[in-house]
């Protein structure tokens, strides 16, 4: 079940189909369920209601209550259910609704799902997919807005993906479900309604393969999740100033494709990492540490990190806006990098 259907080349046809991020996720999930009878979905209000973010719309109609399971508010048991079912050969998709709720079930993710294969001497696999909505921007405050990828990426045995648009939302979902390891899919709440071209057929996007979303020679910007769009917008802005930004979307942060990053930095000699999570201890630290180690002699400036300041996510939109990195701060960062000789 680990074979990956390569993404079909997007050939320019009459009217390329656009789909929203959440619908692309939904389509990928539905296709993966059609592909493999062992895939089922469990979570709070995923079946009858279709998920509070409409991630699971219409799936109950097609797949029925055997494969679409509404559960009590019991995230530890929910993930545990997934672990046990995966250990017995199913391919569960369990939904955590908000990523912030992970604190009530992290033991099952980290001490059970992630370590089981290793601790058991390889006796089994845990092909579990965990879906969750992350990120700030909706005024949902400190307990409903976090981006906690740094915790999960630090855990051997887990994989973590962060779709940045509708196309990756579908392809990464399909690959996560096909993968034989526990994979956490972090959907970004602000992106749910954003649209992009999405092929109709099922396709996977390899986990651990970064995508260069824009080519450029002056600064490399490595952006996670929603920050990819912000980086592309910053690149447009900077292009008008004659500065060419290369934008790299890692797509999966565990495994992390650092080779693509290194290769880019060898050309640009300047690099900025941006994510929504708090800067201190965020993924940007790991990326910066690896880059300065691997391509030290190519760097014309230190690796610059942009993330959230060291505070919980504030409620008031005026604060939240100042809190989350955006295109302006990215452009600003690139300019600063270029000023450095």
């Amino acid at each position, binding site marked *: 079940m680990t074979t990956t259907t390569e993404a079909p080349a997007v050939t320019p046809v009459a009217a390329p189909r656009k789909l929203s991020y959440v619908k692309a996720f939904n389509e990928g999930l539905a296709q993966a369920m059609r592909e493999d009878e062992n895939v089922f979905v469990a979570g709070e209000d995923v079946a009858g209601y279709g998920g509070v973010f409409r991630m699971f719309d219409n799936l109950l109609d097609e797949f029925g209550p055997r494969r679409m399971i509404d559960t009590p508010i019991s995230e530890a048991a929910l993930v545990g259910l997934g672990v046990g079912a995966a250990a017995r050969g199913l391919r569960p998709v369990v939904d955590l609704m908000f990523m912030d709720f992970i*604190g009530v079930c992290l033991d099952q993710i980290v001490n059970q799902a992630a370590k089981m294969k290793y601790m058991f001497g390889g006796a089994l696999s845990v092909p579990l997919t965990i879906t969750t909505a992350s990120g700030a921007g909706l005024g949902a405050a400190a*307990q409903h807005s976090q981006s906690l990828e740094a915790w999960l990426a630090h855990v051997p045995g887990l994989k973590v993906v962060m779709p940045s648009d509708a196309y990756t939302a579908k392809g990464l979902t399909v690959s996560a479900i096909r993968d034989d390891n526990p994979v956490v899919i972090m959907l970004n709440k602000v992106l749910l309604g954003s649209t992009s071209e999405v092929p109709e057929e099922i396709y996977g996007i390899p986990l651990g393969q970064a995508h260069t979303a824009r080519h450029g020679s002056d600064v490399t910007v490595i952006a996670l999740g929603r920050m990819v769009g912000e980086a592309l917008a910053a690149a447009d802005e900077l292009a008008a100033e004659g500065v060419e930004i290369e934008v790299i979307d890692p797509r999966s942060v565990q495994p992390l494709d650092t080779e693509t990053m290194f290769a880019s930095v060898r050309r640009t000699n300047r690099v900025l990492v941006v994510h929504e999570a708090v800067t201190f201890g965020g993924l940007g630290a790991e990326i910066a540490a690896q880059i300065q180690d691997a391509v030290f002699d190519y760097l014309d400036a230190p690796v610059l990190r942009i993330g959230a300041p*060291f505070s919980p996510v504030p*409620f*008031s939109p*005026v604060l939240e*806006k100042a809190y989350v990195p955006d295109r302006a701060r990215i452009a600003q960062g690139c300019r600063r990098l270029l000023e450095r000789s």
Partner: protein
Amino acid sequence: MAQRAPTASKKSPQVSAQVIKDLHERMVRIRLFETEAGKLMEAGKLPGFLHLYVGQEAVAAGVMAALRDDDQITSTHRGHGHAVAKGVGFREMYAELYGRVTGACLGRGGSMHINDLTRGMLGANGIVGAGVPIAVGAAFAARYKGEDNVAVTFFGDGATNIGAWHEGANMAAILGLPVVFVCENNGYAEFTPQSGHMLLTDVADRAAAYGMPSVIVDGMDAVAVHRAAAEAVERARAGAGPMMIEAKTYRYFDHQGVKGLRHPYRSDEEVAEWKARDPIDLLEVRAVADGTATRAELDDVWQRTRDEIADAIAYAEASPLPDPADLLLNVYSG
């Protein structure tokens, strides 16, 4: 399985006229606060989420009327009713919903973190069940310091399925702490009916697993709630340990927001059946019938509250926004 509205107790309430008026005023305050908040949200004026308490007023009013100011409560995502009933000011609450610096959380917390330590309101909470152990800790502190205040923790039917609830209940029981567990059973956890998340008909039956007594009350009858709460609170205050109250109630609006319905998880008949037993109507009809209050007196409460709300909303709207330069304020103490 549809949530059935309990039938009203025919017993005449054995509480004073003063208590009836107190319950009435608390309920009206909640009702109007929430109704206006819903309108503001619909008008696009409020950021974030809004879990309205309308329909459940008798529970917050009934319990809070049994508490002293120094008694402590922990609340939930659906916390406005508790805050209002515990005496948190409209101004701070609306200003918080608007994200203003004059708000109950200086605009940092929003709806799900409204708190007022001066009123013993230890906060709404965005994590289902998380307030339960915190109330246990507050009760621990009271006993440790030799104070006789009690802690009340509110939670929904759905919340009793989460681990923290179970652990908190057992912890309170084994330590014999002065905590009152109030289940606001509105029949649903988001869009899942109680029958879809537990096999029990009465959540109160869970108390026995901790050796905790429990009682079930009509959660649309503020007087009934109040009497049960007064008993449980006095019991706890006297050192007899925790107790659980299950109040069968109903929320009128959607789980979040006002009308986000896209899935007919509740029938029109069910909603109508419950609204026919509206907690404020119920209390008003009885109060007028038995001469506890005149219609004019009751109307006056509504009017005064409306005025106070208009003032509070104006205050909130006129209040300044937080300054982004203060982003790191209050992350740490000291």
